[in-house]
């Protein structure tokens, strides 16, 4: 009797696992497959999972009808990379300070950056709008790069700081004894050692910026239009059969990120482990 119970358990666990995996991945798989269906089939009832005809038509139509799509992808890329670079630089510097020094000023700053992170992003949209307009910064790549950086920087500073805390001070002190200036010790020693956390931070910020919708929706219209914004505009296309193209656009926007995340998921999980908590 005890033996049968023992044999059932793995089976139950695998079934549960299957359910969890279906829950997490089914919608994505469905969308991926639908992008290869004929547009009319997407609207068929009863719905089919596997396309009766496998076609690239949606992708072709997408590029024919939405000529701004490549530009949107380019914008997203530029903005994501810009956000990553800006965030990494600013938060790494700050984290170094928080890790290696202490003073009332630094304590106050820490409190400030934590408190200010509690500000919901949307509430600055109203005041920022006329300010950006007056500075002629509306609808520029810079706007999104700065905004994305601002809302990621507190957490990233924290992740870096925890990581730096784990690098013993002795290493720098040895370097200083050997004649390095504090700046050099930072540049030559800390940064190379911090590589894993740089990767983690880059991933987190990059994914956020690549996928972000709200700020793109509010502050950008044409010049710096990102892919998520374009796709949301595609959902209301007047010919009505554009759903196939929407799925094709979804595919192109999400698949690179998905594959990337699958490959580097250990950085995400590990990186968070070193930070212990994440928001």
């Amino acid at each position, binding site marked *: 009797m005890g033996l049968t119970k023992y044999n059932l358990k793995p089976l139950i*666990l*695998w079934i549960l696992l299957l359910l*969890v995996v279906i829950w*997490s*991945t089914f*919608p*994505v798989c*469905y*969308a991926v497959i639908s992008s290869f269906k004929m547009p009319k089939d*997407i609207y068929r009832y*009863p719905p089919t*999972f596997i396309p009766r005809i496998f076609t690239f038509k949606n992708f072709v139509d997408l590029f024919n009808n939405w000529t701004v799509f490549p530009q949107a992808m380019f914008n997203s890329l530029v903005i994501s990379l810009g956000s990553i670079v800006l965030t990494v*630089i*600013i938060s790494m*510097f*700050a984290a*170094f*300070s928080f890790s290696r*020094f*202490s*003073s009332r000023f*630094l304590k106050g*700053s820490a*409190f400030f*950056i934590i408190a*200010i992170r*509690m*500000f*919901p992003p*949307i*509430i*600055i949209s*109203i*005041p*920022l709008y006329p300010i950006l307009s007056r500075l002629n910064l509306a609808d520029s790549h810079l706007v999104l790069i*700065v905004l994305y950086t*601002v809302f990621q920087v507190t957490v990233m500073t*924290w992740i870096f700081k925890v990581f730096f805390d784990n690098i013993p001070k002795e290493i720098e002190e040895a370097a200083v004894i050997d004649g390095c200036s504090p700046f050099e010790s930072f540049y030559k020693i800390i940064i190379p050692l911090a590589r894993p956390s740089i990767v983690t931070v880059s991933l987190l910020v990059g994914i956020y910026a690549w*996928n972000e*919708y*709200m700020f793109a929706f509010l502050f950008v219209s044409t010049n710096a239009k990102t*892919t*998520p*914004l374009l*796709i949301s505009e595609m959902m209301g296309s007047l010919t009505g059969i554009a759903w196939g193209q929407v*799925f094709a656009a*979804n595919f192109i*926007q*999400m698949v690179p*990120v998905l594959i*990337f*995340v699958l490959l580097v*998921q250990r950085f*995400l*999980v590990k990186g968070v*482990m070193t930070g*212990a*908590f*994440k*928001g």
Partner: protein
Amino acid sequence: MNSIKRKSLGHYLVIPLLLLLIVVILIPEIWSFALSLTRYVPGGNIEYRGLLNYKNIFLDYSFWNAVKNNIIFVIVVVSLQLLLALGFALLLATGFKGQKIWVSCVILPYALSPVVTVTIWKYMLNYDIGIINFILDKIGFEPIPWLSNSLWAFIAVIIVYTWKQVPFTFIIVYPARLSISKELYEAAAIDGANEWQRFRFITLPILKPTILVAMTFRLILAFRAFAEIWLLTGGGPLKSTEVLAIYMYKEGFRYWHWGISAAVGVLILLLTMMMSYPQMRIMYRQMFQNE
């Protein structure tokens, strides 16, 4: 001499961060306080109005509707997230072949844009051709009017948001669960504890701080939810899914009542600050653990 130089360096390194936050968040927010006391339509003049905007907001039943929706949404969504994330974490911690693949699968929704998420779910939840109603029909249930009925739209929004956010919570809880050493469980098993007891007396107490931290983070983020809800229902049939962020957007960018919108923003800020106090304390202590 060296240590003073080092200290200034420390201060300099923090200044870019501070500048960024002050210029982009603090100053606009102060301007927003000012705006909330005026009547301002873009292209027009700014008139001072005192607290009249706030009074009008408190008299507006749509505002209280948004508050109610927001609170219910937050409570349900965060509870669900914690339950599911904990469940997934415990399940995966038992160890499977090809572990890395399964973990990647669970994390998958995290890598999607809210736009993509909503597109997919809108398609699946479609009353006529959606696959979910199709399956329900096959099992013998009535198809559900997901996005056209007040109650079901709210449920739909909860499902979609939870689906997308569980990976975040999972990423926090799972490593914490992994860090509990096997020996503890083995020792307990030898002492005669069964599965449930091991969970109650080992897993739960050790994970409690992590869960609490995850909960406070998730609460604050759920409170500001905008993108997923806006894209899925736009505030929902009859404002049933209209949360505060959407209410603020509409007042500002659809009706062009910028003074009122700014005032709503101030109210959202106050509510958020009240809710964030525990999280702020935790993060602050974490950052200065070594002091």
